[in-house]
C-alpha cells in the first residue's frame, strides 16, 4: 500500500508542479451486505486541483459510490481516501471538509422542504461562525449567481426541477469549495433545464477555478470535461487518458469500422497495458506501454490502409 501511495501521490499534477492530488482514492473498495454486494473493488483515482473530471458508466457500475467516498458521506470497506495527500478517517474531519472545501450536488436535489430557497442555501453556512445577517447575504448572493435572485423566498415545492437543482448548486458553492462533486446533476431534468444546469456547473468550474467531478451516464456531458473516467462493475476500466492516447496517433485518418474491430482484436486491453497502480499516471510515466500499444495500432491501421490505397 505504501508503495502504491507513493507512486500515486508523488506524480506531477497537470500543471507540472509536483503536488499531491486534491483528492484521491487509493485501493478503495466498498462492499455492502457483508461483502455480498461489491460496489467498488480496489479503485485508484487521483483528481488534481482545477481538473474537470467526468465519471461515466452504466447503472450499478459504482459511479455514485465513488462520489459518496470522495465526499466522505460514505466509508470505504477497504483502502484510503486522501485529501491533499492526507488520509481522512474521522467523521468529524470529513464533516469539516464538506463544510469548507467540498460541495455536493445530488441528482434528487435534496433540499429541505420546509425551508425557502435562501434558507436551504443558508444552512450550508451554519456552524462556520458566520453571523446570521452575513449568512443571509451570502446565501442570497449564491442564489443570484445561479440565476435565482428572484426566487429566494420560495419553498422547494414552488420551484421547477431545474430551479431546485440550481438552489442545490447554490448551496454547494456558497462555501466556495475547492471541490465540487455532482452526482447525475441533470438526471432528473428535462433537456432544456439539463443544459442550463450543465452550463452553470461548467461555468462555475471554469470561472471559480474549482475542481469538478461530474458523475453522469450522458456521453455528451462527459465530453465537456477535460478527463473522462469510465467505470464498469465497480472498477475503473479507463482512467481518463484514452483520448489523450488516441491523439498520439498522428497522420493517418481514423480507420473504418471493420478496421476498428480488427484493431480491438489485435491490441491488448488498456487495463492490460496500464497496470492498476498506474491508472491515474501522467503520460510521461506510462509512455512505454502506450508507445507499444500505439505501434500495434499503427501497424494494424497501416495494414488496413494499404489495400485501400
Amino acid at each position, binding site marked *: 500500500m505504501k508503495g502504491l501511495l507513493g507512486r500515486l501521490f508523488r506524480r506531477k499534477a497537470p500543471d507540472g508542479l509536483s503536488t499531491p492530488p486534491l483528492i484521491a482514492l487509493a485501493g478503495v473498495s466498498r462492499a455492502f451486505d457483508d461483502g455480498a454486494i461489491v460496489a467498488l473493488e480496489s479503485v485508484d483515482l487521483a483528481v488534481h486541483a482545477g481538473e474537470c473530471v467526468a465519471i461515466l458508466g452504466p447503472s450499478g457500475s459504482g459511479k455514485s459510490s465513488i462520489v459518496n467516498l470522495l465526499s466522505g458521506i460514505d466509508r470505504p470497506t477497504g483502502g484510503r481516501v486522501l485529501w491533499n495527500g492526507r488520509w481522512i478517517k474521522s467523521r468529524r474531519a470529513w464533516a469539516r471538509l464538506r463544510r469548507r472545501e467540498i460541495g455536493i450536488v445530488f441528482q434528487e436535489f435534496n433540499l429541505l422542504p420546509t425551508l425557502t430557497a435562501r434558507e436551504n442555501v443558508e*444552512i450550508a453556512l451554519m*456552524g462556520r461562525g458566520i453571523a446570521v445577517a452575513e449568512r443571509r447575504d451570502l446565501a442570497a448572493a449564491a442564489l443570484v449567481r445561479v440565476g435565482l435572485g428572484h426566487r429566494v423566498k420560495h419553498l422547494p415545492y414552488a420551484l421547477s426541477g431545474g430551479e431546485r437543482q440550481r438552489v442545490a448548486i447554490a448551496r454547494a458553492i456558497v462555501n466556495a469549495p475547492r471541490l465540487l462533486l455532482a452526482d447525475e446533476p441533470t438526471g432528473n431534468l428535462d433537456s432544456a433545464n439539463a443544459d442550463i444546469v450543465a452550463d452553470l456547473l461548467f461555468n462555475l468550474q471554469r470561472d471559480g477555478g474549482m475542481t469538478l467531478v461530474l458523475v453522469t451516464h450522458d456521453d455528451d456531458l462527459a465530453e465537456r470535461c477535460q478527463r473522462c473516467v469510465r467505470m464498469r462493475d465497480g472498477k475503473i476500466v479507463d482512467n481518463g487518458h484514452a483520448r489523450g492516447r488516441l491523439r498520439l496517433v498522428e497522420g493517418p485518418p481514423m480507420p473504418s469500422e471493420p478496421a476498428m474491430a480488427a484493431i480491438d482484436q489485435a491490441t491488448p486491453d488498456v487495463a492490460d497495458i496500464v497496470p492498476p497502480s498506474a491508472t491515474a499516471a501522467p503520460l510521461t510515466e506510462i509512455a512505454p506501454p502506450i508507445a507499444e500499444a500505439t505501434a500495434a495500432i499503427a501497424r494494424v491501421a497501416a495494414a488496413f490502409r494499404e489495400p485501400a490505397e
Partner: protein
Amino acid sequence: MNLTGLALRNLRRRPIRTALSILGIALAVGGALALLALSRSIQDSTRDGMDEIGDDLSVTQRGASDIFGGFLPADTEVRVAKVAGVARASGEMFMFAASEKNRQVLTLGWPDASYLWKKVPLREGRVPKAGERGVAVVGDAAAEALAKKLGDKVEILGQQFTIVGIANYKAIINRGTVMLPLADLQDLSYRPNQVTEVHVNVVRGAKPADVARIRRDIEALGGLTVSTSSEQLDNDRNFKILNAVSLAISIIALAMGVIYVLNSLVMATQERTREIGIVAAIGWSDTRIMTSIVIEGLMMCAIGCAFGLALSFLAAFAFPLIPTIGDMISFKPSLRLIATTIAAAFALCAIGALYPAWRAVRMMPAEALRRA
C-alpha cells in the same frame, strides 16, 4: 435561520403530533406539580395550623408512628408544666370524627382551663365555660361547609353539640376544625383520662440551649418525645407515606411525559432520516445535528411546562372545591417546587431527546440518503 428557528419549523410541520406531545408533557408536569404541591400543602397546612395555635413544643408518646397514633395520660400536662422553663402546658385530644353530610371533621378536645381556649380568635360567640358540656366552637370553614351558624346543633360521632362560638383562624386546617371540651371528646372516643399530645409554651426569651434543656427534662419524665411542629410532621409516618407516594407518582407522570417526547422525536427523526442525511452531507457535524434534535425536544418541553404550570394553578382553584379535602389544604405550589419540577422535566426531556438524536447521527449520511 438558526437551530431554534429550524427546530420550530420542524415542530410546525406536524402540528397535531407536536400538540399531542406537548399536551402529554403538560399533563405530566401539571400532574406532578399538583401531586407534589398537594402533599406538601397538606403538611404545610398542618404545620401552619399547629403554629397558629401557638406551640413552641409538642409532647407525644414515645414511639408513636404518627400524630394521631399516640396517647398520653391526661396528667402528663401537669407533670410537664412543672418542668423548669415551661411557661404553660395544655393537653389536647384530636381525631377525625364523623359529622353531618357524610363529612369527617378534625375535632379537638381541650381541658376547661386550657390556655388554648383563650387563644381562639372568635368571630362570634364565646368559648365553653368551665365545666360546660355538650357545646362546641367551630371554625368558620367548617361552619360554612356544614351550613351552621351560632346556636345550631352540630353532630359529632352521633352526638349533638350546640355551637356557642365560631372561630376565625387563618390556617386552613384550623378553619375546618370543631373544638369540644376535652371530657366530651374523651367520652365519645372511649378514652377517658387520655390526651393525644401536650402543647408546651416555654418562658419568653428562652435561648436555644434553654429549649434543649427543657426538651431533655421533659423526655426524662419517661415515655415521652418532645418535638417542634416541623420535627413532628417530618417524622410522621403518614406524611412520609404521603410524600413518598406523591413523589413516586410524580416521577411516573414525568417519565410518561418523557416517553411522549421520546416517541415524538423518534418518529420525527425516522421520518426525517433523509433530511438528516442531507444536512450531514453538507457538512453539519454530529454535534450540531444532535443539538438541533435536542432543541426540538426542549422546545416541546418548554411549551409543555408552561401549559403544565397553568394546569397546576387551575388545580389550585379546583382542589378546595373537593369536599373531603378542600377544607384541609391550601394549594400553594412554591417557587422552589415549580423550579425543581420544571428542571426535572427539562433534564428528563433532554435525556429523552438524546436517544433519537444519537440514532440520527450514527448512520453514515449516504446510508441516510439511501434509506429515505
